[in-house]
């Protein structure tokens, strides 16, 4: 029924239509790994076995595309990605929901992500810029093209790695395995394929943009948190340490008690708002990363 593994994969992809992109990618690479291994091993035992017959036997044992798709859908339904959805207590008061953000794993994950993004962003940016400029300048040499291919492959690899970070911290389902290139290609064809694949370029753009984004996330987060913490610290500074909240070269202004309480509350408010902001940014960044890095 199926002449090649590619035919089976095409059918499997069709059966999986509508599932999560990342699940589809996982299912396709699992099937490819298994079927190719099975065919190779069957033909090793019986060398005169036709490739098609071997493939048919392998598929009989592996399951039809419909059966395989059903198995993935079933398991996917039961497994939540990354940090699970955090609190799911419903119908709480507005205040409860507002301050409940501190109990959200997603919010803390987003904060961690925004801090890490400064480091990973700079690394991606450096790698992308160096790789691009070396690839262009080496292109006059004989080893220029293999170098460019290696660089582009490393970009796809880093995209996969970034996907793992995004899934763990932002809770967006991302691919767990690389997509295989068609087999038996010469490296020149492979390079052409990478060059024509829009996801190579999207991943590269993602890597370049990750530095400004990472810097923005990091400075936004630290500024807001430092601001909130200093507001919270103000009442303690005056009441316990006698440090005036407002001080110029000639005057020291101590605030009345009620003003200190208000300032402290404002600090708690901005800190909580920052948590919400981080969660929102995490959500947005998750969508964006999925759009840029997950191959259809």
């Amino acid at each position: 029924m199926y002449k090649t593994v590619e035919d089976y994969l095409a059918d499997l992809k069709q059966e999986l239509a509508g599932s999560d992109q990342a699940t589809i990618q996982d299912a396709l690479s699992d099937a490819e790994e298994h079927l190719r291994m099975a065919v190779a091993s069957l033909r090793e035992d019986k060398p005169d076995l036709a490739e098609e017959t071997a493939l048919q036997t392998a598929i009989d044992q592996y399951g039809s595309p419909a059966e395989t798709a059903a198995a993935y859908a079933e398991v996917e339904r039961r497994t939540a990605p990354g940090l699970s959805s955090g609190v799911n207590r419903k119908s709480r008061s507005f205040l409860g929901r507002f301050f409940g953000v501190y109990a959200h794993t997603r919010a803390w994950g987003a904060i961690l992500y925004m801090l890490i993004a400064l480091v990973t962003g700079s690394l991606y940016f450096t790698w992308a810029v160096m790789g691009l400029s070396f690839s262009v300048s080496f292109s006059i040499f004989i080893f220029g093209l293999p170098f460019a291919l290696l660089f582009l492959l490393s970009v796809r690899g880093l995209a996969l790695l970034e996907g793992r970070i995004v899934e763990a911290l932002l809770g967006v389902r991302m691919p767990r395995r690389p997509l295989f290139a068609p087999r038996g290609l010469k490296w020149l064809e492979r390079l052409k394929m990478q060059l024509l694949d829009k996801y190579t370029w999207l991943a590269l753009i993602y890597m370049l943009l990750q530095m400004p984004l990472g810097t923005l996330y990091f400075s936004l987060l630290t500024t807001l948190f430092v601001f909130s913490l200093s507001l919270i610290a103000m009442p303690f500074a005056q009441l316990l340490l006698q440090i005036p909240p407002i001080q110029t070269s000639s005057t020291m202004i101590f605030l009345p008690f009620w003003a200190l309480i208000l300032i402290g509350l404002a600090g708690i408010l901005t800190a909580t708002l920052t948590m919400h902001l981080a969660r929102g940014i995490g959500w947005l960044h998750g969508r964006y990363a999925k759009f840029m890095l997950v191959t259809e």
Partner: protein
Amino acid sequence: MVDQTALTKKLQKEMNSGIASLVLLSVLGQAKEPMYGYQIAKLLNDKSGNTSLMKQGALYPVLRSLASSGLLESQVEPSVSGPPRRYYTITAAGRETLEIWTEVWNQTKSFVENILKGTGNV
């Protein structure tokens, strides 16, 4: 009329969904080195004789789900012939879980056997 084949298939499927996790965890618990999907599928095929209880394709999503719950660890390695393979190993948490699951399985097995034999009641 009762469609026995369909009902039997349904029962088999429902039983498999739990058993597959236990079986895969146990295979990797006994394995001396990391194993990849096809290796595991082949081993299970050899053990089950002629009756194939579940399609091999259904093992992979279960492996992945065990790995994402931290019971297994996995790692992709390139192979000489063909696409890269994902190797799975059991984690410490996986071993602990396997012990508990084995106990649960033994209890379930003896419970079901007792009921099916009809011993102990009447």
